[in-house]
């Protein structure tokens, strides 16, 4: 009887009556992303869970050791192509520190605008996936459509829809086009009006609430103990946002607030990125007001710049939490080591603790609420 089961599913006999089944969710299953989750279930309840990432490991850190500081840019943004400005941000900040470059004021504002637009693009993509895996197909279509407004802005700004390769050590690649500020303001205002409607169709929806409230609760002390970051940490009631706590570039000049929810369940974890998007709209509007009207946006670097025997660690708040890069230089044009520390991987560590005792049907609601991006976690 047992030998006739399809491969991947097996029944483990424990004692006389206990039957625990091992189920492989992924790596091909669309509900798991590019990874496998080994789930042991007793009936409908999850006994234990073992996430198994590593299917899209590309060796970004090793590749960075063979390229100079400029040609590292296109491949370092590959882990998160939707959030490419934010993944390049700590790299650029770090290289600027070890090379001793001071970035022009206007470039700092342009960077903030680009990274906030990119954060919204990533969050909308994530929200669309979260919606479709909870069976809410409207929530797939609306963010996927509204994402076009921001992609259009980023295309005007950087010249590419995704994988912008826009940030460089020393500033940004090109200045904003002539009428960008008006177009940006108009589309951001409309975008803010649009995403406010997500509340009525998604976040106030009693069907969503019944599936996500009190599902996968991460308590405040557990969130600190497991080392979670970003929206997962803020949903558990801890006010920690690197844009506020360690402001980089011009974030200390801008007016915004961080969003904190107390409950720590899947509902709170899915709501924090949406609240952050509304906050991002305010940041962009504020940055467009305060940006210097003219000035350079890039410091010209020497070809093949070299740094001394120095090392630096810089981190920023990406769409998925803190994203840090540790860069060591040994005096050559190539960095000696680039260590990337991502929020996705740290949030994944919470998954076995959150899923224990949940129903199998609630697994997508907990798994995707962790704001996890498999490609970034594998690097």
């Amino acid at each position: 009887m047992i030998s006739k089961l399809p491969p991947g599913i097996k029944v483990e006999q424990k004692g006389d009556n206990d039957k625990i089944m091992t189920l492989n969710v992924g790596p091909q299953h669309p509900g798991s992303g590019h990874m496998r989750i080994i789930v042991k279930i007793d009936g409908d309840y999850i006994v234990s869970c073992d996430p198994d990432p590593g299917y899209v490991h590309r060796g970004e850190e090793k590749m960075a050791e063979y390229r100079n500081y400029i040609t590292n840019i296109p491949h370092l943004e590959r882990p998160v192509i939707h959030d490419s400005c934010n993944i390049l941000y700590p790299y650029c900040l770090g290289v600027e520190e070890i090379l001793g470059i001071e970035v022009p004021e206007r470039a700092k504002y342009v960077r903030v605008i680009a990274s906030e637009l990119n954060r919204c693009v990533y969050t909308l993509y994530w929200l669309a996936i979260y919606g479709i895996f909870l069976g809410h197909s409207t929530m797939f279509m609306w963010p996927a459509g509204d994402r076009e407004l921001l992609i259009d802005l980023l295309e005007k700004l950087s010249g590419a829809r995704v994988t912008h390769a826009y940030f460089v050590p020393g500033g940004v690649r090109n200045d904003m086009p002539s009428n960008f500020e008006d177009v940006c303001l108009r589309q951001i205002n409309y975008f803010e009006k649009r995403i406010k409607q997500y509340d009525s169709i998604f976040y106030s929806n009693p069907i969503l609430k019944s599936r996500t409230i009190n599902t996968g609760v991460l308590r405040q002390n557990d969130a600190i103990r497991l080392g979670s970051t970003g929206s997962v940490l803020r949903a558990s009631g801890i006010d920690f946002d690197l844009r506020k706590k360690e402001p980089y570039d011009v974030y200390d000049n801008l007016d915004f607030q961080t969003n904190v929810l107390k409950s720590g369940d899947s509902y709170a974890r899915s709501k924090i990125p949406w609240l952050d998007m509304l906050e991002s709209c305010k940041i962009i509007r504020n940055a467009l007001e305060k940006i210097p009207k003219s000035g350079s946006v890039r410091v010209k670097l020497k070809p093949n710049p070299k740094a001394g025997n120095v090392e630096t660690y810089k981190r920023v708040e990406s769409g998925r939490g803190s994203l840090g890069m540790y860069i060591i230089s040994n005096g050559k044009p190539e960095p000696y080591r680039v260590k990337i520390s991502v929020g996705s991987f740290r949030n994944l560590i919470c998954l076995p603790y959150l899923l224990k005792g949940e129903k199998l049907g609630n697994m997508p609601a907990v798994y995707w609420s962790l704001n996890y991006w498999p490609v970034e976690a594998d690097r």
Partner: protein
Amino acid sequence: MGTASGIIKALNSGIKHLAIKRFTLRYPEQKLKFVGDGYQFDPVSGVGIAGLKGRHMLFHDKCTGCQLCSIACEGIAEAIAMVKVDEKWKQNKKSIMPQIDYGKCVFCGLCVDACPFYALYMTNDYELSSFSKEGLIYTPAQLQVKPNIKQDAEIKISDRGATHG
């Protein structure tokens, strides 16, 4: 009671969308309008000019065959190869010019940044599909051609929602 009002609220929000305009770009008939003529770079100031990073355009009268674009591409995509051309130019003693393989190119535009003689630009042409891998390799003569495409669709925002017009 909360459940019923929540469902009615969601339905109401959905019904309102029946009156909103369609926000879909009908691609082959409509094409998005871009800023400028494509990504260009000013090596003197070290700052680029905003534009779409599409197919390259090579100015044969400016190219000196210095291979800087090819060197820049080495660590990225290895898409640029220097090939011999039959033309005789005063500034190009070796008569070599870049040939770009669009099966490998990632459209990062760092070759444009590398060119010190304003010889390599990027254009708004992004329709590069081909039935064979050889068809994706663009020779210097093909890169010389200025693309002629009509792109005019823009996002318009009105009271009845955004549309591509």
